[in-house]
C-alpha cells in the first residue's frame, strides 16, 4: 500500500515537472517568469547587461517587498536572454521566452531586434515593454502588446534637427547612420527636421554597427565642408568616428542621439570627445524624480550605469503595476490594464498614447565639457 502510494506521488511529481508553462510552486509562492532580452554578447554587450541589471534591480525589489496577486503570494523570476542585437536571433529568443511561459517581456534593447520580436509577442498575447527601442516602426505595427517607456525617434529626431539648425546655427549638415533600424530611423527623422528648419543636408553617408573605420566616408564628407556632422548610431562607432574627424582636420560639430550619450563614448574617445553634442530621451539622471536614489541603489550593486538601466527598471515596475491593478499575472487579463498606466517612476511620469508610445516624452541635450556630459537643456517633444 505504501509502495503504491509512493508511485502515485512520483507520477504526479513527474507530471508537474513536465508542464513547464504551468505556474510552478516553490517554497515561497507561485513563480511568475518575466522575460528580459538584450544583447549580452557582441559589441553592445555593455548596454545589454545594463538593461538586464536595471530590470533585475526592480524585480528583486518587488520580490523583497512581497507581491500578492489573486490572493496568492507571487515570486517573480527573471528569464534573461541574449539577442546579440541581431534581428534573426531576436525572433528565436522571443519564441524561446514565449515557450518558457513568461508573463511579460522587458525588451529588447535595439529597435532592429525589438521590431521582429514584437510580432511573436503579439501573436502569443504577451505584453512587451521596451526600455530603449526608439524606432517609430515598433509601435506603428498596431500590435496591442507593444509598449515603450522611451521617447521615440520621431520625437527625438525632430528635437535634434531643430536644435542643430536653430540653436547651433548649422546650415550645412552631413548625416551618417549605421543602417540599423535605430540609426537609420533617427537619421531619417533628423533629416526631415533639418530640412523643415531650413538647413541643408550636404551629405548622407552610411556605415555599419560593426565598423571602426570611417576615414573614407569622413574624407568624402570633408570635401562638402559641413558645419555639423550628425551620427545615428551607437557609442562603439561614434568614438572612433569623432577621433577620425579630428585626425582628418574636420572642424564641424559632432551631434548624436541617445546611443552616443554614454560614459563609454567619453572613455573611448578620450580628449577628442570634448565638445561633442548628443541627446537622450527623457530627463538627465540627476533631474529624474527618482534619479539620485536609483543611481545609489544601482551602483552599489552593479557599478556604473551605462544608459538605459533606469528605463528597464521603470519598465519592470510598469509591467508589475498593471498586474497589480488587474490582480493577475495572466497576460490575457492584465494586458487590458497596461494602456491605462499612470505611473510615476524613476524616469518620470509614464503614460502611454493610443499606439503604446510614451506620451509627451522629453528630450534632453548634452555636451561633453571637461570630460563629462553636461546638461544643456531639456525640450518637451511637441506631442
Amino acid at each position, binding site marked *: 500500500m505504501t509502495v503504491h502510494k509512493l508511485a502515485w506521488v512520483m507520477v504526479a511529481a513527474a507530471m508537474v515537472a513536465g508542464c513547464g508553462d504551468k505556474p510552478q510552486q516553490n517554497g515561497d509562492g507561485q513563480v511568475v517568469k518575466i522575460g528580459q532580452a538584450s544583447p549580452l554578447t557582441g559589441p553592445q554587450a555593455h548596454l545589454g547587461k545594463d538593461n538586464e541589471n536595471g530590470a533585475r534591480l526592480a524585480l528583486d525589489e518587488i520580490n523583497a517587498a512581497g507581491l500578492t496577486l489573486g490572493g496568492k503570494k507571487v515570486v517573480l523570476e527573471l528569464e534573461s536572454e541574449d539577442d546579440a542585437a541581431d534581428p534573426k536571433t531576436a525572433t528565436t529568443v522571443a519564441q524561446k521566452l514565449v515557450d518558457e511561459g513568461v508573463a511579460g517581456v522587458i525588451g529588447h534593447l535595439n529597435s532592429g531586434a525589438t521590431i521582429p520580436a514584437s510580432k511573436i509577442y503579439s501573436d502569443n498575447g504577451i505584453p512587451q515593454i521596451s526600455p530603449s527601442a526608439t524606432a517609430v516602426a515598433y509601435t506603428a505595427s498596431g500590435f496591442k502588446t507593444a509598449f515603450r517607456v522611451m521617447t521615440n525617434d520621431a520625437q527625438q529626431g525632430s528635437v535634434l534637427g531643430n536644435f542643430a539648425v536653430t540653436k547651433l546655427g548649422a546650415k550645412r549638415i552631413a548625416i551618417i547612420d549605421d543602417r540599423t533600424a535605430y540609426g537609420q530611423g533617427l537619421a531619417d527623422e533628423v533629416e526631415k527636421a533639418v530640412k523643415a528648419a531650413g538647413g541643408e543636408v550636404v551629405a548622407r553617408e552610411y556605415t555599419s554597427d560593426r565598423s571602426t*573605420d570611417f576615414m*573614407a566616408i569622413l574624407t568624402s564628407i570633408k570635401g562638402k565642408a559641413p558645419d555639423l556632422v550628425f551620427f545615428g548610431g551607437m557609442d562603439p562607432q561614434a568614438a572612433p568616428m569623432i577621433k577620425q574627424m579630428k585626425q582628418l582636420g574636420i572642424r564641424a560639430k559632432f551631434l548624436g542621439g541617445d546611443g552616443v550619450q554614454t560614459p563609454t563614448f567619453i572613455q573611448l*574617445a578620450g580628449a577628442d570627445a570634448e565638445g561633442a553634442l548628443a541627446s537622450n530621451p527623457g530627463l538627465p539622471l540627476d533631474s529624474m524624480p527618482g534619479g539620485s536614489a536609483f543611481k545609489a541603489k544601482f551602483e552599489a550593486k552593479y557599478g556604473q550605469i551605462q544608459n538605459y538601466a533606469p528605463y528597464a527598471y521603470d519598465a519592470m515596475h510598469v509591467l508589475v503595476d498593471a498586474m497589480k491593478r488587474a490582480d493577475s499575472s495572466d497576460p490575457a487579463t492584465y494586458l487590458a490594464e497596461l494602456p491605462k498606466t499612470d505611473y510615476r517612476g524613476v524616469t518620470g511620469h509614464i503614460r502611454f498614447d493610443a499606439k503604446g508610445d510614451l506620451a509627451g516624452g522629453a528630450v534632453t541635450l548634452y555636451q561633453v565639457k571637461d570630460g563629462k556630459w553636461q546638461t544643456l537643456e531639456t525640450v518637451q517633444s511637441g506631442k
Partner: protein
Amino acid sequence: MDIFLQQLINGLVLGSVYALVALGYTMVYGILELINFAHGEITMMGAMVALAVIGALALAAPGLPGVLVLGAGLVVAIPVCVALGLLIERVAYRPLRHAPRLAPLITAIGVSIILQNVAMLIWGKQYIPFPAVLPQGRHALYGAAITDVQIAILLLAASIMLMLILVVQKTRLGRAMRATAQSRQVASLMGVDVNRVIAATFAIGSALAAVAGVMVSAYYGLAHYYMGFLLGLKAFSAAVLGGIGNLGGAMLGGLLLGLIESFGAGYIGDLTGGFLGSNYQDVFAFFVLIAVLVFRPSGLLGARGVERA
C-alpha cells in the same frame, strides 16, 4: 585632388593592416592548405595583451614616452601570440593533419570561438580605450592630412613585409618552408623537419597578427574581444583576392582591398549621382572580389593550373 590623396592615404593604411593579417592566412594555407579561421582572434589577442601592458605602464609610469610604452606592449604581445599560435597548431590542427580537410576547418572555427570567449572572460565585454600615450601629430600634405600613427603603420608594415620576403627567399628556414609548401612528403624525405617548419609558419604568422592587432587598436583607439572577427574576414578576403598561398598576393590583395574600400566608400555616391551610397561600400569590395575570381579563380597572383602533384 586633396580628397583623392586623402582617400589614397586612408586606403594604404587600412590596406597595410589587412596585408599583415592576410599574410598569416596565406602562409598557413600555402603550407597546410588549411584556412586558419582562428587567425583573426590571434590578432585580437595581440591587441588585448598589448593594451593591458600599455594600460598598466601608462598608470605606473605616466612620464614614459609613448613610443617606448607602445614598444613594451609589442614586446609582450608578440611572444604571447606566438605561443598561442604554436599551442593552437599543436592542439587543434596537428592531431587532425591527416583527417579530411573539413575537420581542421571545424576545429579552427571552434578555436576562434573559444579565443573570443576567453578574451571576453579576461577583459570583459566593454570596449577598452587605448591610452593617449602616442604622439598625436598631424601633418598637412598637399591639402590632405597624415598622422604620426598612420606614418608609423605604413613604415612598420612595409619593413615587416620586406623582412618576411627576405626570410622566405634567402634563409634556410625559408627554403624549407617553400619546399614544404610544394610537397610535404618529398620535403620530409629530403630531411626537412616538417613539423618544425609548420610550427615556424604559425609562429611567424602569429607574430605578424600581434603587430597588426596593436596597430589596429592604436589607430582606432580601442580594442574589443570581437574585433578579430571582421578584421579576419576582410584579411581572408584579401588573401583570396591576391591568390591564397602566395605571399606577394596577400600583400597586393590587402593593399587593393584597403584602396577599394576607401575609394569605393568615398566616391561611389558622387559617381552614381547619389543613386548608390556608401552603404554599398562592402558590396562594392566583394563585387571586385567576385569579378577577379571569375576571371582568375586562383586570385591575382595565385598559381595558374595545378602546381601540386
